[in-house]
Structures are given as structure tokens and as C-alpha cells.
């Protein structure tokens, strides 16, 4: 009897190996809520088209490494990876991904309906179709901002109405006003040496009219504006909890969700979590405003931190037509609106303007307003060296400044020197 059981199990295993069929399309993604949003469309797609899908999900921390290992080893592991827009230049330049605009049927994807399409366009070819997008800005507590007592006290102290900040001065005033430790802090920031810390600097640099690079890719972030931006950032840490100095995204989100701060300088994804009654103590009380400007730059259209994730097609994919079919289905405006509440801000103008969407996500009009008033700018320069510039040069030096090891000028000059050498070695200045 025992031998029979063993034989049956082995036969099943062998049979499953012999007769198992690879799915028509192999997808790969990080583990995240916007992945959950399009995952919910997979069964419908298969029912509608007969094309089978298989998905592998990898934690974000390891995702890019695993994708790179798959490509550099020459294996054909994934047909349609779901990637960050930031990775597209590196993947495209190395020819690991195929230009979607060159695939038959790509016109049906309606590129004009996509915000920031230029970010994914290299040498006039579109490499990624975004599914999801978000902006970096300020998430704030509507209950505190709308409270009549708070409003009155604020007006008495600062001489103007309490409202979501439009200028950096208002932003700092509000952070100071709500700084009531240990129960409430004015602002939540992400102070650990990481890309998150650098985003605080970049937002301020852009808000003040500064730039990371000039037209010849020479660093300009170590200008006087850069120094001011860095010093301004340090001011804000005075009204944050001391623990913020070691926060990354998840820590900052947790602090805000627990109602410990009036504002959080974070991204719009946070709203899905902050407004989730199952995990957040401030559910229904969180909204968003684009990153504030200075008085001088208030009416200018300036860069603002912009993040998007979308679908690319691996160069090694055998059936690129099927890939286009999936991408078309997943990024159809109707489907984007349908799955938005799961955790996705649609990356199509038509979906954002759909009257049904604000009924599901009340802060969408604020998001659209911020998006239309800014130049969507990726987290790091869209060159293969972009990640290294942020993580290996800006992050350690900004962290050095905040820890009191360097002055703002020293920190930015050291970062600029390292970046210059990096880009020089990679041949950017020899053309």
C-alpha cells in the first residue's frame, strides 16, 4: 500500500512536470498595492482573450537586482515585467527591453493620453506604458486643518488662514504650529540615508527654481539655491519627531497612519494606506497637496517628484503581440478606474478625468490639480547612472550634513565632485 502511494505521488509529480504548460505570458512585479490592482484584472483578461498569464512577485528591495540578473545572464525569464519608470533608460539602453511603439498594434495604446510619456520615450521610441503614477507632495490631516479651533489659533498666531500649504513659508509655519510633542508632530520626514532623504532635498531644490544638472549634465545642485534647499530641509526636522532622522518610507507612513503628525512629506500612495480603516487611525481624514513653492516661484510650472510604474516588453519575448494585448487591457481607462480603489492612481488623463473616479478617491481632483501645475520629474536622472547619483553621492552627503558632519556647501560640493567623476568616466563629457 505504501509503495502504491509513493508511486501515485511520483506519477503525479512527473505528470505535472511533463504536461505542465508555460503560460502564454510571464509577468513579474514587485509586491505592492498597485500590483494588486492590475492583478485583479488578470482573470478577466484570460477569459476575454484566452491568453494565459503567470505572475511572479518579488519584494521591491530585491526586484531590480533579480530582473538585472535575469537579463544579464541571458535567460528568458519574463515577457512583460512591471517596472518603475526610473529603470526604463537603463533597461532600454542595454536593449533588455523592446520599444513598445515598434510593436504592431501599439497605436491602440493612445500615447497622447499618458501623462509624462516623454519620460519613457528614448530616441523617439516608447518603452513603457505606465499603469500607475503618483506625485511627491504633502499628505495632511483634513480633520486638523478643518478644525475651527485650530483655524482660529493659527490665524491669531500667523495672520493668515490655515489651509494646505502653497508656499514653503506656510509649510514651515504649519509644521511649527502643529509641533506638540510627544503626541503630535508638525511633519513626518524620512531622514535615513536613502533615496527617500534625497527626495526631500530635490523637492526643495526644484521649488526654489534650482536644477540638478545643466544641459551638459554637469551637476548644478551645489549652487547657492542647493545650499538654501538643504538648509531649509534641516529647519523642517526641528518640527518632526526625533525618530524621523532614521525613517524610511514605511516608518514615515506608519507614523502618519497612527495620527502622530499633522503632515507627512511623502507620496500619494500613502493615501491608500492612510485612508484604510483597517490599518489607519486617520482613515477618511487624509488628503494631498502638491509640494509647496516659494513666493517667487509660486506661479511657475516647476519640476515635482513624479513616480510611475508600468509595463515593458522584454526584447527576448517571443510573442510581443500578446504582450500588447495585455498592456492594452490593463491600461484601458475603464479598467484603470475600476481598479483604482484597490491602490492605483490611473496613469491616463482620460481615467483621471472620469467623473466616477472622485467618487471612489475623493482626493483625485487635488492630485490632478498638482499634476497639471507641475513638470512631472522622475526620482533620479533618466540615465543608467541615475540611481548611483542619488544613492551613492547625494544620499550619503545629505545625510552627512543633517548629522552635522559637513556644512551644506561641503556636502553638496563633495556630492557634485563624485557625480562629475562618475559621469566623466562614463563618457558624458567627452562627446
Amino acid at each position: 500500500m505504501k509503495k502504491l502511494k509513493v508511486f501515485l505521488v511520483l506519477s503525479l509529480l512527473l505528470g505535472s512536470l511533463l504536461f505542465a504548460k508555460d503560460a502564454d505570458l510571464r509577468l513579474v512585479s514587485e509586491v505592492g498595492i498597485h500590483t494588486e490592482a492590475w492583478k485583479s484584472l488578470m482573470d478577466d483578461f484570460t477569459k476575454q482573450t484566452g491568453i494565459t498569464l503567470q505572475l511572479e512577485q518579488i519584494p521591491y528591495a530585491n526586484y531590480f537586482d533579480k530582473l538585472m540578473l535575469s537579463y544579464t545572464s541571458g535567460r528568458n525569464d519574463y515577457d512583460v515585467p512591471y517596472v518603475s519608470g526610473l529603470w526604463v533608460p537603463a533597461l532600454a539602453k542595454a536593449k533588455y527591453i523592446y520599444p513598445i511603439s515598434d510593436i504592431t498594434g501599439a497605436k491602440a495604446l493612445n500615447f497622447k493620453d499618458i501623462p509624462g510619456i516623454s519620460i519613457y520615450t528614448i530616441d523617439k521610441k516608447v518603452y513603457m506604458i505606465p499603469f500607475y503614477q503618483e506625485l511627491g507632495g504633502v499628505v495632511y490631516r483634513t480633520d486638523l486643518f478643518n478644525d475651527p479651533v485650530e483655524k482660529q489659533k493659527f490665524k491669531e498666531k500667523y495672520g493668515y488662514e490655515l489651509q494646505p500649504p502653497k508656499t514653503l513659508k506656510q509649510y514651515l509655519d504649519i509644521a511649527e504650529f502643529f509641533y506638540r510633542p510627544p503626541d503630535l508632530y508638525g511633519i513626518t520626514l524620512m531622514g535615513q540615508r536613502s533615496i527617500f532623504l534625497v527626495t526631500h532635498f530635490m523637492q526643495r531644490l526644484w521649488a526654489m527654481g534650482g536644477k540638478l544638472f545643466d544641459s551638459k549634465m554637469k551637476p548644478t545642485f551645489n549652487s547657492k539655491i542647493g545650499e538654501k534647499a538643504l538648509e531649509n530641509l534641516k529647519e523642517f526636522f526641528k518640527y518632526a519627531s526625533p525618530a524621523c532622522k532614521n525613517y524610511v518610507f514605511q516608518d514615515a507612513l506608519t507614523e502618519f497612519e497612527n495620527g502622530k503628525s499633522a503632515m507627512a512629506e511623502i507620496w500619494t500612495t500613502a493615501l491608500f494606506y492612510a485612508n484604510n480603516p483597517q490599518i489607519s487611525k486617520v482613515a477618511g481624514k487624509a488628503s494631498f497637496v502638491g509640494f509647496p513653492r516659494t513666493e517667487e516661484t509660486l506661479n511657475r510650472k516647476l519640476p515635482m517628484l513624479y513616480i510611475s510604474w508600468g509595463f515593458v516588453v522584454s526584447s527576448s519575448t517571443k510573442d510581443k503581440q500578446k504582450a500588447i494585448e495585455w498592456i492594452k487591457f490593463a491600461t484601458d481607462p475603464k479598467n484603470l478606474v475600476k481598479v483604482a480603489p484597490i491602490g492605483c492612481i490611473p496613469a491616463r488623463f482620460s481615467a483621471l478625468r472620469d467623473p466616477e473616479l472622485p467618487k471612489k478617491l475623493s482626493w483625485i481632483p487635488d492630485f490632478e490639480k498638482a499634476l497639471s501645475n507641475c513638470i512631472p520629474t522622475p526620482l533620479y536622472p533618466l540615465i543608467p547612472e541615475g540611481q548611483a547619483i542619488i544613492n551613492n553621492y547625494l544620499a550619503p552627503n545629505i545625510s552627512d550634513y543633517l548629522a552635522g558632519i559637513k556644512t551644506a556647501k561641503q556636502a553638496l560640493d563633495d556630492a557634485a565632485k563624485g557625480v562629475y567623476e562618475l559621469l566623466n568616466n562614463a563618457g558624458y563629457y567627452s562627446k
Partner: protein
Amino acid sequence: MNKKINPGVFYLLPVMLFIILIFLIPLIYSLGTSFTRWLLLRPDLGVKFIGLTNYIRLFKDIFTWQTLGRTFYFVFGAVSIETIVGFILALTLNTEFKGWKVVQSIILVPFMMAPIVVGFTWKFILDDNFGLIPYMLKAIGLGNITKDVPLLANPKMAMPMIIIADAWEYIPVVTLIILAGLKSLPIELYEAANVDGATSFQKFKYITLPMLRPVILVAVVMRTLTSLQVFDSIYVMTGGGPGSATETLSFYTYREAFISYDIGFSSALNVLIILLAMIFTIIYMKIIRG
């Protein structure tokens, strides 16, 4: 004349193959790539032989020397604490008291945890909002230490915290090694010492310590070599910060390999780590033989 092949060679073949495949080939490959410019994100630039350029860059850069200094700080700090505390624990556990087997098992728990879990655990323990250590510091009137800057964001305190987390994880293994050594000491020497009227301290100084020297050195060598590779706790707890206060050679290598994707330069860093490991091993072996 036919030379007879020693049949013992065939028994050694599997392990030699293992060493060649798992150790020698990657080592030689890494050494080879350290003489190239190979940027994985720039396949258009190709793989180019550049001789010693990576090593010159490595040793000319003041950051490398600072990182070496931090690495030695970490290794010396962690190994010292682990050896001293491990030794004391081993001496304590060498006497059989009620429940000593249970205590022995509990002591092993930190070592059973994955290093990344240890990192997260200590990040929570040191968290300024709800961590145990800041709470205890405030309770005993030392709240000023973390008042404005949390321990992990303090450039002077961050590395000691990483050392403590590492020591917490690896003290059990040092304890076990030394305990095994203690249990193997010949009892007759102690009996003879008792007959001669030796005090406990004299027995410890003239019998236990000298006899345990090789065992302690094995533990020290093992921990030194593994400490050089510390990564998980730094990655989770501080990301190498604040500034570069907790960036060791292995973390620097990770940045160059998996953020810059500079395979040539990160291979050179790897070779440096291997050289350091070899130097430490040679020094310790000389001490053992001496």
C-alpha cells in the same frame, strides 16, 4: 616504471572539486574582473581591460581608507565583545545547575534568527518612539542621550549600536565553541592543582586559559572572518548612515556592485576583503602556533 597512484587521492577528489567550483573559480573570476572596466548598465561601453586602474582608484580614494577604519572599528568591537561575553557565559554554563540545558537552548535563539531579522529586531528595540532601549534610558534619567537625535541617527552612537546587535546575534556561537573547549579539558590537571593547593584564580590562569587558547583563537578567527562580511544589520538599521558612519567595506562593495553596477571596481573591493581575511588568518595562525 609505473608509479602507483595513491588511492586516497580519489577520496579527496569530490572535496577538491567542491573547493575548486565553489571557491577557486569564483575567486579567480573576481580577480580577473577587478582588472576591467565593466559597467553592467552600460553594455555599450563593453568590458575593457584597464590593468590596475581600479586598485589605484581604490587606494587613492580617502573614502576607502575611512571605510577600512570603520570596518576595523566594527570587527574589533564586535569580536572583542563576543569573545569576552562568550567566554564569561561559557564559564557560567560549564557548571551544571538546575535548568542549565534549558538556559543553554535559550541562549542559542539569537543565533538561529536570520541576520536580517536581527537587524529589524534591533531597529525596533532602538526606535525612539516605542523602542525598549530609549524607554529604559528615559526611565533611568538618561533620556538626554536620545532627546534630539535617535541612537541610530547619531553618528557617534550608530556604529556601537550595530556592534551590539551583531554581538547579540553571535555571542551564542562563541559561547558554544568555548564551552565545547571547556568540556574537553582534562580533569586530571585540576585534580593535581587541587592537591597542590591552587586557588580558583590560579587554576583559571595557569590551566584553563592556556589550554583554551587554541579554542578561543578559533572562535576569534571565525568571528573575524564573518564580521568582515557584515551587511544585513547595517542595511536594515542605518542604510550605511548617518552620513557614512556605519558604512563598512562589505556595504561599500554592495553599493558599487548593486547600485552603480560597477563590476570591475566592486570586484577590486572584494579582493581587498579577501586579502584582509587572509592577513587576519595568517596573524591568528602564527599566534596559535606561537
